């Protein structure tokens, strides 16, 4: 008989703003299994994990761990009980060493001081035991994403976690790195650890799980043995309807005479003496989506900041937007030439949270003639514009006067996309446009991007989500270490694992092949 390690009884979580994130969830987890929890973005997986890990308290219902009802007041209690969590966004301090990051909160001491030697010894031992191949004295800021994730896992092992929760651990990894991670997870399982694997990528879930639990809309749709469940059944359980996975069907193919929305020539920038953008050249044509794939931290953010004009560090090379050299222009000047931009950090850059939806829907063209009179802004026109956008983009709200941060993540993203859409731009940068939003909104955003593309806009899509890049793009660039590692003129002809090789730096095309990114 296997033994139950964690049990959820009628767990319900209602947030103060009235959002019901989990409703009457019942689940059981057995010791030594790899148990996946799947569901679309926004289905309530993360909230459920927070409840288990003591970050949130359930509004009603109970969590039983090792036969005792838990009453965690913070994650500290969960950690003490033997639960560890690897968060989707790493919880590391870059300026600390690996050792310091691992021992933080549970430091070995001698007297009143931290025993640094003992700490380093223990961490190295642990890293060696699980074949993590880390030099534990290195600073975290020098590590790759995959290595940072290892540090996160070591943190939980250092605290003797028996139950390890991994929240979307593969979202930042290449397919090859994912395989490695899975090998590691299996070895944890053999050593008696229980793994709780959160994901919305079904193939991975099928590959690694013993059992699968499905959440839809905050409600549990049951727990199944992996072998009892086909891919199709799983999909149906998760979304309850069929999805358009092939965006290509919506693409039209008009000729826009090879006009370029964006041209980048020999872009170079360095930081602390190291190149972060290493002589990149490429172009985005009107009427196409150019996808940039790559593991986070390979220069994508810097590239976007250079193109938008937000970069503070000096760079060399040429940037042309809609035929004009824009190196000397600030973001306003570039927007005026026809640039629109969906930013990655939607809460930080994309909205002013406490201001009304209407204010947030006009920020990037607030000075346009159609919403201004001679002296004052035309509040009637603003209202009409905002109401139309809210309607067209199906933003769920009672009123355009509501503060934008009272909306759900998906609806906030719709506000951002609606605003950028309404700039009628010829060039759009979409940076992680569907990160962390529900599948309905995701589909909506994808359709709008295709619509803009069909109307002749050039779109630069930067995304860590390979599926997104592959299903939307016409052409694909892979970035590795600030360079273009690979260029694929036909997005349909490339496989996920092929892209993965380039993302990892295992493969690198010749300059001639890469040159097509600019000249095709």
């Amino acid at each position, binding site marked *: 008989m296997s033994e139950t390690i964690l049990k959820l009884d009628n767990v319900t979580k209602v947030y*103060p*703003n*009235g959002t019901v994130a989990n409703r009457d969830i019942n689940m059981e987890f057995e010791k030594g299994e790899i148990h996946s929890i799947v569901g679309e973005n926004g289905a309530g997986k993360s909230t459920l994990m927070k409840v288990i890990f003591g970050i949130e308290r359930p509004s009603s219902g109970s969590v039983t761990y090792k036969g005792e009802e838990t009453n965690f007041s913070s994650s500290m209690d969960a950690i003490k009980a033997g639960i560890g969590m690897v968060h989707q966004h790493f919880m590391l301090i870059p300026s600390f060493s690996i050792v310091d990051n691992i021992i933080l909160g549970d430091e070995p001491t001698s007297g009143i001081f931290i025993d640094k030697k003992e700490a380093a010894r223990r961490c190295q031992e642990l890293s060696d035991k699980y074949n993590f191949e880390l030099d534990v004295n290195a600073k975290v800021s020098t590590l790759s994403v995959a290595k940072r994730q290892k540090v996160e896992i070591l943190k939980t092992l250092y605290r003797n976690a028996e139950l390890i929760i991994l929240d979307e651990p593969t979202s930042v990894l290449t397919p090859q790195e994912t395989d490695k991670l899975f090998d590691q997870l299996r070895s944890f399982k053999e050593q008696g650890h229980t793994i709780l694997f959160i994901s919305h990528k079904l193939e991975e879930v099928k590959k690694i799980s013993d059992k699968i639990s499905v959440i839809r809309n905050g409600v549990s749709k049951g727990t199944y043995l992996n072998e009892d469940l086909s891919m199709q059944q799983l999909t149906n359980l998760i979304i309850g309807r069929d999805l358009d996975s092939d965006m290509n069907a919506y693409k039209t193919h008009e000729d826009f005479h090879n006009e370029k929305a964006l041209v980048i020539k020999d872009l170079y920038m360095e930081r602390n003496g190291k190149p972060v953008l290493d002589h990149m050249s490429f172009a985005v044509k009107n009427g196409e989506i150019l996808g940039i794939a790559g593991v986070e931290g390979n220069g994508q953010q810097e590239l976007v900041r250079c193109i938008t004009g*937000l970069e503070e560090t000096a760079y060399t090379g040429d940037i042309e937007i809609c035929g004009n050299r824009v190196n000397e222009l*600030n*973001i*306003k000047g570039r*927007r005026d030439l026809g640039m629109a*931009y969906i*930013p990655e950090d939607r809460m*930080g*850059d*994309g*909205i*002013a*949270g*406490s*201001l009304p939806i209407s*204010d947030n829907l006009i*920020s*990037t063209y*607030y*000075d346009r003639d159609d919403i*201004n009179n001679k*002296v*004052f*802004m035309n*509040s*009637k026109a603003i*209202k*009409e514009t*905002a*109401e139309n956008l*809210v*309607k067209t983009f199906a933003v769920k*709200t*009672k*009123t*355009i*006067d509501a503060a934008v941060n009272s909306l759900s993540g998906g609806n906030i993203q719709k506000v951002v996309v609606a605003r950028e859409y309404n700039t009628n731009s010829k060039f759009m940068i979409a940076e992680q446009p569907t990160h962390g939003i529900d599948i309905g909104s995701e589909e909506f955003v994808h359709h709008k991007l295709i619509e803009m593309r069909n109307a002749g806009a050039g779109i630069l899509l930067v995304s860590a989500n390979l599926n997104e890049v592959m299903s939307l793009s016409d052409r694909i660039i892979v970035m590795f270490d600030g360079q273009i590692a690979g260029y694929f003129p036909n997005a349909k002809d490339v496989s996920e694992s092929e892209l993965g090789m380039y993302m990892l730096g295992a493969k690198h095309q010749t300059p001639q092949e890469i040159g097509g990114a600019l000249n095709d």
Partner: protein
Amino acid sequence: MTDNKNSKYSKNYKLSISNPKLFDAIKMTIAILIALAITFVILCLISKDPVNAIKTILFGPLSKKRYIGAVIESFISFAFAGLAAGVLFKAGGFNLGAEGIFIITGAVVAWIAASPITTSPILHPVLCYLGAMLVGGILMILPSFLKAKFGTNEMVVSLMSNSIYAAITAYIVRNWISTAQRGSVSSKDYLPTARIGYLYEPLRISACFILLIVVTIVLYLVMNKTKLGYQMRIAGTNPKFAEYSGVSAFRLSITTAVIAGVLCGMGSTTQLLTQTSYYTPAQSLVGIGFSGMLLSMLGKNNPIGIVIAAFFIKYLEQGAAVLYFVDGAVPSEIVSIVEGIVIMLISSQYFLRRLRERQLLKEGLEEHAE
């Protein structure tokens, strides 16, 4: 009309706490009541007749026309200081330089007012205003410029500039425009043409009062109806969002600094030409710039709110002054305590939050039921 067509998205709030404006008003009222209650407790400790004391603070200014006149006359320059701070804070700036601008523009006013450049009793004060506004507008730029261009800590820099401007003012007044008549360092007497007279003497209403009303209305319109106001709003709420949207943080902070400096110049001129006959740098304008920041917090950066707050505070100060006259045990600084408590309470988001949440939850559930 179009209003009906779109009514789905422009729902009118019911008259309940979920209406943010009404909620703010309730919050403000309760905060004031709590502050007065605490003041009463303090008065019980230090005054022999606390009931009469609180009565005097609250209603004393109404007992004589000249009391209320004094309130009307003195609140104007404070209101200007509050408006200056409001403009800066609204756009997200932490330039605390108003104090220094008040003091140094005082020297400009004193110099022009004592110079026989015109004999017109209208032109002379106008020139004083223009001089102070010009100098104020220029000097206020420095901390905002350094912040916007180089990321210098504008709070510390502006506070240091306050001390530096005060020192320069003392130097200028002592060496260039002082008189030997008086003991402390102060300027020569203003010429009679520079002084501002009353339009309605019993309540001490002067042209400055009208100036304040006009400026307040203009500012209200600028902050709520124009592109500049929109820029201030989004930059004040989320500067990164403003930058992303293409609002030039640099231009915006320079613009708001100039407006604030000009307002400070108006304030210092008003104060000097209505309340003094010569300028004493260590005394005449000290503290007004700082009080402005508090007013701006009381008025939540809304020009009309700020002016009301300025009147309210000056009114209480007058009440406290009347009280000090009858009961020497209570110093007039007690008003600061009222002011402090109100500011702390109204800037607390969670103050009375439960009340509002309960209402919102109820409405949310009702809607869910639909």
